């Protein structure tokens, strides 16, 4: 029975996680500061922020940048609890596991600040190790926070269109957009197929049969996607597509965007120059 539930939980869990993480437009549609900026300018300035984070060697500056990120999130009407949860989920993955070994003298020799005895083995934490591990973790926290903030305050289709200012080929942008569009359709098909199976077989299903059904589902989904691929291509041809897509560009840069770009560029230059002087 538990094995049955495992399949059900996996399918519905994966579907709802994907739906929530990919298709949640809730914050991007709010009337906040970052949402009001032109997506191109916003992406450009966020790249500057992330580059500043990479260039700076000062934890104090990194902490200031992190604070600035939280303030921007507040001004953009993002729930801080949600924002922290969203960013801190990734931190252990990206940094803690890498940073922890750097604390110890084996990897970073230097001035001892703490010695730990574990079953006779001596582990020494060094000042240099602690400093480089903290710098690394703070850098990751701050850059991940900026990346997440850009993601939650910008709609996915806008982010896709922004790729074009970085000269990403139109066909690539369009393919990404179509993936985004059809992932949802397939998620719905998976969900509905599973419900249809459940309604016919009831809840008692041997796990081996469950595995068979999942495998059958995958192959059926593959066939549907193959059919859809051909049908969508025909729909594109029917509306004049001839190999090189022309996509919509209706972004408008306002004076507020220029002011924001100017301030962030100035800040970026100061950080770079400051870093060189220090």
């Amino acid at each position: 029975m538990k094995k049955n539930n495992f399949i059900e939980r996996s399918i519905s869990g994966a579907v709802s996680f994907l739906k929530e993480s990919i298709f949640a437009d809730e914050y991007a549609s709010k009337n906040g500061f970052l949402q009001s900026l032109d997506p191109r300018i916003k992406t450009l300035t966020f790249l500057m922020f992330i580059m500043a984070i990479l260039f700076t060697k000062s934890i104090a500056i990194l902490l200031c940048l992190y604070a600035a990120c939280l303030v921007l999130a507040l001004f953009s009407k993002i729930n801080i609890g949600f924002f922290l949860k969203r960013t801190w989920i990734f931190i252990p993955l990206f940094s803690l596991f890498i940073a922890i070994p750097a604390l110890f003298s084996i990897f970073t020799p230097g001035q001892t600040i703490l010695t730990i005895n574990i079953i006779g083995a001596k582990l020494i934490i060094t000042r240099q190790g602690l400093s480089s591990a903290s710098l690394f973790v703070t850098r990751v926290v701050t850059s991940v926070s900026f990346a997440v903030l850009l993601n939650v305050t910008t709609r996915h289709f806008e982010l896709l269109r922004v790729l074009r200012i970085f000269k990403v080929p139109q066909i690539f942008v369009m393919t990404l957009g179509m993936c985004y569009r059809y992932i949802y359709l397939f998620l719905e098909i998976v969900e509905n197929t599973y419900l249809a199976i459940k309604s016919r077989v009831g809840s008692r299903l041997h796990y081996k049969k469950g595995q068979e059904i999942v495998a059958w589902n995958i192959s059926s989904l593959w066939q549907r996607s193959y059919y859809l691929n051909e049908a969508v291509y025909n729909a594109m041809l029917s509306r004049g597509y001839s190999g090189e897509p022309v996509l919509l560009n209706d972004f408008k840069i306002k004076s507020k965007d220029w002011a924001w770009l100017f301030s962030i560029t100035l800040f970026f230059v100061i950080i770079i120059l400051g870093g060189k002087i220090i």
Partner: protein
Amino acid sequence: MSEIIFELKDVWFSYLGKFSALCGVDLTIAKGQKICVIGANGSGKSTLLHILDGLIFVDYGSVKFLGKELKEKSFGDENFSKDFRRSVGLVFQNPDVQLFCPTVKEDILFGPLQLGIDKLEIESRFEKLVRFLDIRHLLDRSPHQLSVGEKRKVAVTSTLIMNPDVLILDEPTDGLDPLTTRHIIDLLLEENENGKTIITSTHDLHIVQEISDCVYVFSQEKKIISSGSPDKILEDTKLLQDNNLIHIHRHKHDQTTHIHPHQHLEHHS
């Protein structure tokens, strides 16, 4: 005699060379006509519409568009391809196939942008259609967030904005509520009054009379079994029954139980 738009002679088509979809179809469509193609599921209606839109090509027989043979190699000529796509627009049966862009607005503008239509012209058509179909609130939404009726409205808009001379619609009212059906029919009638040729495939007999001057009935043998005015076709109960377009139906009117073919045209007028 009006200008002939499409002329099909003895058209045969099969999928993968073995699943027959059309078996000897003859058809002539003149400019400004309203044509309706009716038939049960799997009778070849959608295949015919895809052939008329130059998406698939016949195995045998000939298809002419404005007197010119419609062949796969004709679409290698960019000018012909663009002219044809400007002139003929198809609304697909499944709106999920037709709406492939991340937002409704991008989907509507996809066609005219590919065809290189002037930006001001696109803007003016866009505004007119958005107002007429009352879909402004949908523009920034993703097609997956729309209901079936909304998706169909957007699919129709995305074809109408190309302002084609020939509008082909595959089951345009399938799964729609009565009000949305009404909107779409009104729109088609208006387009026809403006000189456009309307070709509709449907098995919804309620709309046939309004949206056609001439009806073609497809049989399960994948060919045209009868054609004529909507009145003539809809009165031929045996023809409709033999081709799975109506069935015997029992229901009440004013406390009297009727048993009659499920056609509704006389009983609910």
